[in-house]
């Protein structure tokens, strides 16, 4: 690891960038111009966010707040738990535990710094973590393994059975750092009763674990508050997603990022509600006027990202789509599958409901909700089984009227690379041109963004889409 990287704590550095970025939003245009001179790279993040107005500003403030919480946790008498993005943090908040979502941290570093997460990615390999594993954990993990961040107290993940590579990263971290570990394990089917029972049992054991680690007990009222907030968020999301189906869609590409990143960070917390409200207001106005969310105002193509997005150096991926008049119809990460969501009717078995009646129903609701978080929901089983990846992709492509599908992941993603070829054959056969990107969503040393963009461009041209 380069000495200059070693000199600063990772989490603090990230917070500092985001905090100053969020303050810049309050400055005058002149001040902003001045600031941009000093942060030529970060400009690529800040610009698209500030251009979005209130939602963008709220989003960056949200990120800054999240990081501040991590930094201050021990001072505030709270524990820190490393966790994965398919884990909904509500439970942790209810027990005064501050979540550190490794994938979010990796993505933020990748977006913000000129050299992305290279040093941290490589550091993980130096201490023996495999280079071929998924970069989404490996990046932030490197910083934590190197002791370059406020310490993690314990690990909770929910990827075993869904993504072993992911689970392996957390198991390795726990062992390497010598801290306690609990994992939620998912069976391969969703919807069956015995799966629900398993989720419930597993979740209860998790609660016991987190209670023990945090020294807190789960209070019913606290839980109810969080679920009530989640209820509100689900309502806003339902509206947003409904408007997303309009042609042209009133949602700018970057909103997709806001939707899921906000949920990973603050699901069940008022901060996320606030962000959704701002997005909702803007979107409704645009929808009422029949306007596209794209900057050009002209929607030429609707692309559904059937896996994840691209997070290296700046927000250029979203910007790039925007510039070309390509509407982003969401990814596997965007959707939540609340039972009454408009699109949820397409896969009724994959949905969850919230029941705030008593402690048990609430725990059950949380367990179900967690079992519906992005990858946990649809790539836990064979892709062609009911409710799994193919079903969901085709349903979403249809509901959101996508013209084509784009797969992007990481070379470390055994899970999807193990099946994406036959998967793409079937989506093609169903009439959706499908592009498989060959890059790494978190590490542009695998394929430069220029090369990635060229392949995308070629796909749109050769397949007659643009």
């Amino acid at each position, binding site marked *: *690891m380069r000495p200059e990287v070693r000199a600063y704590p990772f989490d603090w550095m990230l917070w500092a960038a985001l905090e100053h970025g969020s303050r810049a939003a309050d400055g005058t245009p002149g001040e902003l111009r001045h600031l941009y001179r000093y942060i030529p790279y970060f400009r690529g993040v800040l610009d698209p966010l500030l251009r979005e107005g209130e939602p963008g500003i709220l989003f960056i403030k949200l990120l800054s707040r999240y990081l501040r919480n991590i930094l201050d946790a021990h001072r505030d008498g709270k524990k820190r738990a490393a966790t994965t993005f398919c884990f909904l943090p509500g439970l942790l908040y209810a027990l005064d535990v501050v979540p550190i979502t490794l994938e979010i941290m990796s993505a933020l570093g990748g977006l913000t710094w000129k050299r992305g997460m290279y040093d941290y990615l490589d550091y993980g390999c130096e201490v023996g973590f495999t280079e071929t594993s998924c970069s989404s954990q490996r990046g932030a993990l490197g910083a934590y393994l190197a002791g370059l961040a406020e310490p993690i107290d314990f690990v909770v993940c929910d990827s075993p059975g869904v993504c072993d590579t992911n689970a392996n990263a957390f198991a390795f971290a726990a062992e390497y750092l010598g801290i306690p570990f609990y994992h939620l394990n998912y069976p391969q089917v969703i919807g069956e009763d015995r799966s629900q029972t398993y989720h419930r049992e597993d979740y209860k054991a998790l609660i016991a674990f987190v209670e023990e680690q945090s020294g807190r007990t789960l209070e019913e009222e606290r839980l109810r508050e969080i679920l009530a907030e989640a209820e509100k968020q689900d309502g806003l999301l339902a509206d947003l997603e409904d408007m997303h189906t309009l042609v042209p869609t009133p949602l700018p590409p970057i909103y997709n990022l806001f939707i899921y990143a906000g949920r990973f960070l603050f699901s069940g917390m008022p901060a996320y509600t606030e962000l959704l409200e701002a997005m909702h207001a803007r979107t409704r106005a645009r929808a009422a006027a029949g306007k596209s969310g794209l900057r050009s105002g002209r929607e030429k193509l609707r692309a559904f990202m059937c896996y994840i997005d691209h997070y290296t150096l700046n927000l250029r991926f979203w910007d790039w789509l925007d510039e070309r008049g390509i509407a982003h119809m969401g990814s596997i990460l965007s959707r939540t599958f609340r039972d009454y969501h408009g699109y949820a009717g397409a896969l009724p078995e994959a949905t969850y409901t919230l029941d705030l009646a008593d402690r048990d129903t609430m725990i059950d609701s949380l367990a179900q909700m967690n079992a519906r978080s992005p990858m946990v929901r649809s790539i836990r089983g064979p892709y062609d089984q009911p409710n799994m990846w193919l079903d969901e992709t085709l349903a979403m492509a249809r509901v959101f009227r996508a013209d084509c599908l784009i797969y992007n992941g990481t070379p470390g993603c055994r899970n999807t690379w193990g099946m994406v070829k036959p998967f793409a054959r079937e989506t093609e056969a169903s009439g959706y041109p499908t592009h498989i990107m060959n890059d790494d969503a978190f590490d542009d040393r695998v394929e430069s963004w220029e*090369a990635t963009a060229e392949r995308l461009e070629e796909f749109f041209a050769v397949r007659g889409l643009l």
Partner: protein
Amino acid sequence: MTLTAGCDVGSLTTKVVLMRRRRLLAARVIKSRVNPQAAADQALQQTLNDAGVARGEVVLCIGTGYGRERIPFVDDTRSEVACHGRGAAWLLPSARTVIDIGGQDCKAMRIDAQGRVEKFLTNDKCASGTGRFLEVMASVLGVDIAALGDLSRASRAPVRLASTCTVWAQADVIKHLNAGLPVEDIGAGVNAAMAHRVAILVNAVKPERDVVMTGGVAKNAGVRATLEKLLTRRVRKFRKADPQLAGAIGAALLAEDNLKARI
């Protein structure tokens, strides 16, 4: 007096040295051929000629390198790791960490004062940490491999390459060339990409001072300079001999040790 030889048949080059009482008498580096025997024979003959000694005077010859099993005239063989360790200790007695990058392999090792290997790691992950990677890139750039290292010095803005794969990096290099970027910036990017990969390996053996480099890539100043930066350690240079010879020197020294043990 006991005259020993070391013969290192690498994937790219074949090296032969003659030593007497730990002093280097003569050395040759020639290109390895499809016929490793012939290359070894040729290198040995030239070295003998240089030193003005007859074949019969060589008491013991140890072979190493990928082609070690095919050298007809060697009496014994040793692994490259052992030979490079031993050779490095001779080249610089204070050496404790050796980075050996040859054509097909990259190794990082920790050695003791006698040059015995305590721990070593090799690059199994990806070929972009090998000398061949540099050769492929040099040929795309149209520069001589010996000149590639100096491009780093001339560059003010090294490009960033998709450095995790030779195949992909090459595509990037071509793209950058086509985009009209200066050759020195691309070359510097190539060297840096290689250094980054090697640094992972070196850090993983927990390097101790002094750090030295052996093998052909040690002659690439750009890789060396970036490595120094990444490791925050000086990578010490040798004056005694060409670092590419380290393996052959180690082999000759191990031959001497063998003789001593026999007496």
